[in-house]
């Protein structure tokens, strides 16, 4: 029966080519606009560490004094940890793995004669950073906890920077001059940059940044290397050095394998806050301490700009108007065929059969419109990629979005066909046949 209905649909659509093309264009435009925006939103809210994100958490403490007032526009000091707190959590070793980190920019001075110095972004981190995030290495490896303790001048480079400085030979064992110090290269990581760069400070542009170097955090503190992003100080005595109790600047991530372990860690944070409060350092309730999961933290940071959400709503509104349009056109088209349908009814077709026939006709429009929509969405995504926004480069369709586009188009067109099909099924055959 399916083949026969398909044939009928084809004949019927060919009879009114203008109307058919019109409906396909309408659904194509609606689907194209919506899928462009859905894809952008999809890549922006995608899991940056598939398979591992469920075990990654970030603890947050609230060391602010009671009378501290948050500035509406300003960054939130409790988004990061102070060095003493980060070191306390690190030494407590309550998680499977834990690492403290902060972003920084340094000047690279290439050893080659005539090469211009340039600035690069990178990360100061503690030794577990690489195993915590499962960072793949091309050459060598990360540094050890002992290197952290010894403030060893070692560095891990990104493959791009290593290639730029040392060519294809990797550069492990070589020396590189960053800022005013020399560092020994111990490792080169393979191409690795989670999008968004979830572990970075939230005031940066996390969709376009990646780390070119990794240095031990202890060295950054020791040498007072420049730190990027949200460095918030508080307290009247204005002690705002890196080691201060009153300045937060570090991000902290832990690996917790089971929900029980996560619950225990949460309790540990509350206990730690309570202990700091009894020492007189913290003033706010210990229950203000929070443990965010990776996806929970991204939701909390709300990286997706309001404009993108607005664009998505607009696109969906557009799709809706297109659908109303198609419903009206299909209704007119189906009602026009009341006579033909009445004949089929009189010859024994049940309402269900008519419904199926018309549903298949709507689906044919949907498939064609979906294909057109796919093309329009690719065009839309291409134009998004031309924009200089930091998320623009990511706007690519994956297989799931590709199939989703077609599915949405078919569902939308079948939905649009429902009301007209139902209406035409209610036409009394006898009345129609009389007028034929």
């Amino acid at each position: 029966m399916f083949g026969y209905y398909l044939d009928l649909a084809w004949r019927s659509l060919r009879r009114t080519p203008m109307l058919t093309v019109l409906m396909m264009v309408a659904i194509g435009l609606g689907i194209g606009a919506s899928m462009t925006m859905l894809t952008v939103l999809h890549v922006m809210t995608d899991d940056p560490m598939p398979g591992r994100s469920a075990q990654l958490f970030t603890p947050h403490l609230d060391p602010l004094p009671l009378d501290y007032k948050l500035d509406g526009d300003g960054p939130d000091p409790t988004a990061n940890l102070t060095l003493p707190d980060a070191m306390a959590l690190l030494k407590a070793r309550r998680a499977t793995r834990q690492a403290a980190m902060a972003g920084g920019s340094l000047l690279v001075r290439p050893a080659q004669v005539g090469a211009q110095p340039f600035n690069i972004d990178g990360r100061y981190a503690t030794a577990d950073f690489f195993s915590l995030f499962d960072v793949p290495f091309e050459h060598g490896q990360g540094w050890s906890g002992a290197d952290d303790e010894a403030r060893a001048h070692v560095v891990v480079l990104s493959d791009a920077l290593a290639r730029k400085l040392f060519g294809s030979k990797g550069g492990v064992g070589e020396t590189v001059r960053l800022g005013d110090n020399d560092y020994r290269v111990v490792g080169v990581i393979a191409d690795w940059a989670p999008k968004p760069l979830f572990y970075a400070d939230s005031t940066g542009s996390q969709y376009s940044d990646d780390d070119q170097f990794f240095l031990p955090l202890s060295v950054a503190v020791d040498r007072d290397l420049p730190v990027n992003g949200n460095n918030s100080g508080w307290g009247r005595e204005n002690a705002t050095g890196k080691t201060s109790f009153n300045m937060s600047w570090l991000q902290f991530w832990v690996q917790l394998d089971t929900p029980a372990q996560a619950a225990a860690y949460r309790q540990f944070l509350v206990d730690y806050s309570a202990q700091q409060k009894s020492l007189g350092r913290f003033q706010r309730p210990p229950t203000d301490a929070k443990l965010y999961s990776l996806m929970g933290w991204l939701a909390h940071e709300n990286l997706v700009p309001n404009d993108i959400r607005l664009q998505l709503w607009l696109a969906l509104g557009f799709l809706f108007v297109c659908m109303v349009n198609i419903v009206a056109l299909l209704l007119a088209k189906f009602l026009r065929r009341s006579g033909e349908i009445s004949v089929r009814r009189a010859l024994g077709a049940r309402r269900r059969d008519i419904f199926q026939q018309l549903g298949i006709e709507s689906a044919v429009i949907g498939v064609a419109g979906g294909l057109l929509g796919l093309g329009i969405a690719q065009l839309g995504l291409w134009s998004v990629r031309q924009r200089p926004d930091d998320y623009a480069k990511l706007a690519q369709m994956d297989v799931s979005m590709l199939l989703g586009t077609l599915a949405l188009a078919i569902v939308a067109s079948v939905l649009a066909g429902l009301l007209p099909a139902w209406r035409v099924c209610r036409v009394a055959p006898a009345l129609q046949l009389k007028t034929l």
Partner: protein
Amino acid sequence: MQLRPILASLRHHKLTATLLALQVAFTCAIVCNVVFMVVNRIERITVPTGIAEQELSVIHSAGIEKDENAQAQHAADLAALRAIPGVRSVAAVSYALPLGQSESSYGTCPDKQAMDRAMQIMSTAGAGCSQPSVFDGTPGLAATLGLHVVEGRDFRSDDYVVGYKNRPAVAIISRTLAQHLYHGRQALGQSMYVGDKSIRVVGIMDDLLRPNLRKPGVDYDSMLWPQLPDDSGVTYVMRSAPQDRQRVLEAAAAALVKVNPNRIVNPERMRTYTQIRAKYFQRDTTMIGLLVASVLGLLFVTALGITGLANFWVQQRRRTIGIRRAIGATRNDILRYFQAENFLVASAGIVLGLLLASALNLVLMRLYELPRLPAYYLPAGALVLWLLGQLAVLGPARRAAAVPPVVATRSA
């Protein structure tokens, strides 16, 4: 024109006509709000900075070595830049420039009592104080930017202090800041309080926009300090004829490297003011493009829907039209009939659409902090959709009018 037969015929197509009206309604609601958003964004991206943007270009230089004598370096750089043909004047600033995105601002109070009050309640807003952005720079900055000191005087050479750690004793404040701090009283000669230090107002200048927009009320709260940049990283502002700017920038980069090769002149931080403005509002420009495209798309789809349906109805009624023509209706009557029919359906849609537009605006006001939709958008939106409907129906209506009376004699 008799409306009764039209209404009677529409009753036969109740559902289809309702759907068409619904489409017009949603289009009307969305178009009104989106056009309003576009107008808002255009207002935002055309906000005046108060400086001679068309003639300015900006170049950033960062020294590599730490132990440089910044003052000597800046003086040598300024001299080299001034010597570039076409450059009318040059000044150095630390970083703060309108729309430049790097800003320093200080809680500033009109007098000592207000400062004490602000310290007590830990807020500047409640105590009659402001958070103006502060612009430092070398002598001649106001003239280079094209700022007019409208009252009082420009800085004298003995006003200047070196580096951000030294507070100057005098300042020039913007007209808006003067109004916000002193509410119409004479601001010239007053002593403002910035922290625990007092700064005397020696000049009032035209409004100067902040490096970062906050909200419309405070965007022009700004002041100039006679404070010389004292860092190896410094930004030079050059004024030249508009068409010379690109050439001047390239010459400036070469000149700076020639004075001292031991520095980084980042090509990304070498821009004309037109480029600075474009970068600042880049997201808004994208958004305007998208919004306009979606409005056009919506109107297009709605017009197609109206045309498609009208075409269909004309085909369906060929015989009826023929009969009407045969019993005396003129071509014009037929044309008017379809136009009136469209007008009725569109009007029903527009009435509903205007209600929806207001409702949608209320939702957007809550979710996206959009202002209230001005009332005149509603009649304007209605007019656009009426026109669109009439245009869309014109083709099918003319085809209907062309149906010859002889059709009546043929069987369907």
